[in-house]
């Protein structure tokens, strides 16, 4: 593997040169509003550079190892995978709609379209500010996603009013909506999200029309081992109309140990009474992953988010939800399984910014070997957000003496009529519990496995969709077995 080493101070220059290279390549292909967004993002990134640990939100995670490597987007690639190869990786098997990206690029042959093409059917899909585009025959589809290879019968109209497309197609077909949402759900001072905006080349875009049940959608991001250090910046947008429902799984997985730096951003907008079950999983051994997920929640919307990290040389997810409408509720579940070579970081932020909003957050970390799991959780109750009801819980299980779990739950309360609590624990497997199981004839390894899995159960069991829950259970169990086999 050839790795060009950069002088640390030139990381900004490196990404600026990637920015210029892509701007030249894409000139004329992108609308001016997007070029402006990108330029502004690049300028903000250049001003700060990669985040440093003096930034509170990056307290536990240093990108010092990312800075000197010349990660770059892949050139022309031959995918060499077919849908059969995906089966063991899928977290939402049987989903009617799936987009698959390989090393950050849409891989049309691995995608599954929702049964109807682009804009669903006219009457089901509202077109805010007239942005709707008339359906195109599948053959004209530039991404090749729509209409193939689904093959099945057309879904009933009320389920089909979803629009799912790759980034390039979405920009082309729904520019007004894209411009309306892109970057608008993110907070300020997010250098890795700025870097994403500057360099994003692909991603998944999902619009679900008012009142529609979109069912299950899987967004699969595969990293394959490459000889060159690989950079990818997927940019996802999920917009749920009023009263709509969806289950979206964002699955980041590396095939083998890859030398990659993935910098994904997912923006999510939930309309009034919309309900989203969102699950993000990352399992990228040997790679760097700095994800940003930002949600805006309307009145009475309900978000359930599962943030699962099963491995990564450095895998960090920064998740924020803004409860902007009265009566909105967010349920967050986090699970990190860190083995010897893993540094996992989950940084969450919940902003209660309207009347009578509710949040529940439960984060569990299991760490073994020399692994490290870091959790920072901020709950901010803004002035005027009366009747906020928030609870934040973090529990950590250390399986070795060298393992490290960090926890920083923070409540910031600027309203008076609120109910808020938080708690964090760090512990080891309970000797009494181990002995109890052994006294029933289970051997010591089996007892450890059972108790470790039990620690994760609360999070795994809270996945509502039974198919996704079973896939999560299997993935988690497999990873736990590996963890328990590692030297302590």
């Amino acid at each position, binding site marked *: 593997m050839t790795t060009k080493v950069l002088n640390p101070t030139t990381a900004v220059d490196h990404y600026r040169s990637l920015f210029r290279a892509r701007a030249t390549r894409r000139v004329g292909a992108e609308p001016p509003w997007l070029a402006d967004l990108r330029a502004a993002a690049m300028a903000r990134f250049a001003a700060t550079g990669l985040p440093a640990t003096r930034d509170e939100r990056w307290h536990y995670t240093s990108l010092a190892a990312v800075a000197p490597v010349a990660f770059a987007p892949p050139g022309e690639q031959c995918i060499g995978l077919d849908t059969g190869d995906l089966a063991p990786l899928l977290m939402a098997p049987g989903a009617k709609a799936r987009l698959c990206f390989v090393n950050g690029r849409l891989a049309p042959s691995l995608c599954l379209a929702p049964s109807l093409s682009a804009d669903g059917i006219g009457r089901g899909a509202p077109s805010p500010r007239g942005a709707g585009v008339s359906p195109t025959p599948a053959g004209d589809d530039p991404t090749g996603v729509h209409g193939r290879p689904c093959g099945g019968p057309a879904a009933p109209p009320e389920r089909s009013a979803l629009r799912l497309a790759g980034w390039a197609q979405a920009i082309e077909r729904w520019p007004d909506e894209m411009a309306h949402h892109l970057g608008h759900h993110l907070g300020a001072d997010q250098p890795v999200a700025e870097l994403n905006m500057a360099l994003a080349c692909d991603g998944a875009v999902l619009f679900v029309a008012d009142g529609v049940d979109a069912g299950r959608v899987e967004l699969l991001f595969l990293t394959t081992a490459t000889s060159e250090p690989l950079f990818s910046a997927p940019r996802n947008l999920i917009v749920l109309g009023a009263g709509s429902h969806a289950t979206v799984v964002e699955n980041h997985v590396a095939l083998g140990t890859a030398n990659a730096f993935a910098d994904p951003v997912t923006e999510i907008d939930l309309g009034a009474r919309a309900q989203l079950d969102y699950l993000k999983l990352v399992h990228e051994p040997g790679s760097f992953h700095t994800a940003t997920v930002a949600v805006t929640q309307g009145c009475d919307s309900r978000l359930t988010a599962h943030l699962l990290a099963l491995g990564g040389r450095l895998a960090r997810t920064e998740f924020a939800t803004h409860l902007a409408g009265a009566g909105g509720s967010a349920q967050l579940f986090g699970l990190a399984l860190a083995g010897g070579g893993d540094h996992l970081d989950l940084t969450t932020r919940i902003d209660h910014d309207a009347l009578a909003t509710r949040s529940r957050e439960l984060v569990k970390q299991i760490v073994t070997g020399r692994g490290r799991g870091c959790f920072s959780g901020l709950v901010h109750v803004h002035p005027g957000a009366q009747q906020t009801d928030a609870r934040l819980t973090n529990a950590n299980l250390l399986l070795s003496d060298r393992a490290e779990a960090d926890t920083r739950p923070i409540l910031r309360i600027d309203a008076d009529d609120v109910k808020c609590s938080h708690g964090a624990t760090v512990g080891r497997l309970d000797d009494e519990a181990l002995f109890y199981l052994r006294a029933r*004839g289970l051997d010591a390894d089996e007892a450890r496995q*059972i108790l470790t899995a039990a620690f994760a159960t609360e999070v795994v069991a809270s996945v509502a969709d039974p198919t996704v829950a079973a896939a999560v259970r299997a993935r988690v169990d497999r990873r736990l077995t590996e963890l328990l086999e590692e030297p302590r």
Partner: protein
Amino acid sequence: MLNIDNLQVAVSGNEILHGITLHLPAGEVHALMGPNGSGKSTLACALAGKPGYQVTGGTATFRGTDLLAQLPEARARAGLFLGFQYPVELPGVSNAMLLKQAVNARRRQRGETEMDAMDFLVAVKERMAFMEMDETLLERGVNEGFSGGEKKRNEILQMLMLEPDLAILDETDSGLDIDALQVVARGINHLRSPSRAVLLITHYQRLLDHVAPDRVHVLADGRIVRSGGPELAKELEARGYGWLTGDVAGVEAR
């Protein structure tokens, strides 16, 4: 069945048992009584192999084999059952799953095939009915949120499923209401057979009214200070331990 000779046990460097000798033949039920802190649970845990319970002298054999050399799980599979004084809560570990694993671990040990899901369910439900337990407890986490009485019944349920040769029941009667006490006693009597033995650790005569012991031993300050027939328990009930605890010369129990 169980032969303990001059057993000495230390916990964190402190000797708690100063030489226990106790012989429990097959077919018998022995009661072990004694004041709080006298070492009853220490003996039970040492016999079951709890880590941290260091045997500093003496021997213990179970059906002729050296018990002390074996891992706790091996002792359990060989047919030793410890009913815990304080059953542990295991959130996230299903009660049914634990029972099934435990039963199959013992069956594998005996060279029997594992029980299939259907036979297992039939067997558990039959025993739960016998123990007057709510079937919903099966799907709950092991002892998770169980009442004190439910935990003790659950211990006996496990015992009935595992059909051990030797059951050491550490205060399984404590904290039970009158009806529950009878149910638990029924469970113990059900297990009683010429090929099995039971060591009942208890503070109260009332369990022994339902489960008649063959012998009664009194432990005080890490030594067996008196052994006798069932009448000894009645005498303790009337007189307390004071008259015995002065008498620490040590008595051979048999």
